[in-house]
């Protein structure tokens, strides 16, 4: 529980501009594909989780810091992956 709070608080420090269409989506009927599982451990924003049916869920891309790790770890056969549109998404202030 505290882990999630910490991460939420941390992400709250970053500046985000709303992304129109989600720039990352799990491809249809790929939710149970084992290639998605590593994203649960790797996503620095904790956006991936597993539900009781054993499906990987990406409920939102809000808080995505556009690191690209899920694209490398899971691959484009299971993820539809793009950068958010210009002028949206995370805007770092320090880098």
């Amino acid at each position: 529980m505290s882990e999630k709070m910490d991460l939420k608080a941390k992400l709250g420090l970053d500046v985000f501009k709303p992304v129109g269409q989600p720039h990352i989506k799990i491809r249809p009927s790929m939710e149970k594909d084992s290639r998605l599982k590593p994203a649960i451990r790797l996503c620095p924003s904790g956006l991936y989780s597993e539900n009781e049916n054993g499906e990987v869920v990406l409920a939102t891309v809000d808080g995505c810091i556009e690191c690209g790790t899920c694209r490398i770890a899971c691959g484009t056969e299971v993820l539809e992956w793009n950068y958010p549109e210009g002028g949206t998404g995370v805007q770092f202030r320090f880098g």
Partner: protein
Amino acid sequence: MDKFDVIIAGAGLAGLGAAYTLAGSGLEVLVLERGDYPGAKNITGGRLYMNPVRDLFPGLFEKAPLERFITHEGITLMAKERSVTLDYSGSELRREPPQSYSVLRVKFDRWLAGQVEEKGIMLLPKTRVEDIIRNNGQITGVVAGGDELRADVVIACDGVLSLISEKAGLRSPGSAHDFAIGIKEVISMDSGVINDRFNLQGNEGAARLFVGEVTRGKFGGGFLYTNRESLSLGLVIGIHDVAGDKTAMKLPVLLEEFKERPEIAPLIKGGSTVEYSAHVIPEGGFKALGSLYGSGILVAGDAAGLALNIGFTVRGMEYALASGCYAARTVLEAKKKGDFSTDTLSVYKRLLDESFVLKDFSNFRKTPAVVSNPRFLSHYPELVGNLMKDIYAVPAGPKERIYPTLRKYLTLGELWAELKDLREVMKI
């Protein structure tokens, strides 16, 4: 429809390095950047080495908003309950000109973009490149922000994933073996407190690397860089290593545990985290480099895989600046010939081959295998910690002789294994 001489995709160090080199040439150059401003999507684990790039950009960095010049280098072997640090410092690292500076990319990239714009280069932020335009196999422009923008040549400086080079058929989506993720916090802290804690004076800086338990023996390590009024603290860890281990800890938790280590906690105490960020890092070295050019296109910086980890130094930004510069020089030659075919643009590869960029990658082609040797990442930190423990321990009764104590760990089998590791290290 707009037509330019050159379109540069991405205002990071490769893109801005290319743009700066092209400024004043009379060519019409457009730099596209998907962030609100240059640097908005860019992060670094830490520092820029000046020697390799000083001559490529004469005088440019003298007024750059760099953070601190690094006078203290530290590497710490982290075992579960102890650590051993090697600290390298002294008057040599304080000599002018400084070898390396810590940097924060937003400040640095915005400044560099300002220099580029002052020289008359057009920079368009908030604009994502969506596709490339081809004509008879030659790349003749990009689709960005819904508009078709044409150019004689496109320089892809769109970062480690380089969707542009993928679209151009110059590379395929990377393998997890060849990439790591860096995850980092910027922790705000008074400059006086930083100086006291890291034994620094004025604008001196410290760089610390941590290997071993911090990544649970997986490929990578921790890093800490002092900035003027903040610390950059984070972890780098192999994507494949975490993906392949179902029991691996979630990365945000691993970072928190790193911060709680007794070696780290007192250094960041009282500081406040002001930013949380992460990024993929190329780690594949020479063998993982993509094609660097094609018909009407050049690829520079992380987009080309130009980052190199040789254990003690982890570099990428110099390669980005330099490859951007050489890409620009290639464009100038191609413009003279009025030809942007693969053949003409192969000059780029030659320039990189002749420079420190590909010489480094070639010389260190064996290092990715060596620095990912699990023995270096878990066995040695524990071994050295054990040796230290027994050397320093003073029991209630008589202390054992040192040599038999050491032999307890350094068995024939261990020495043989070390010899084999050394043979690998000798390839570096």
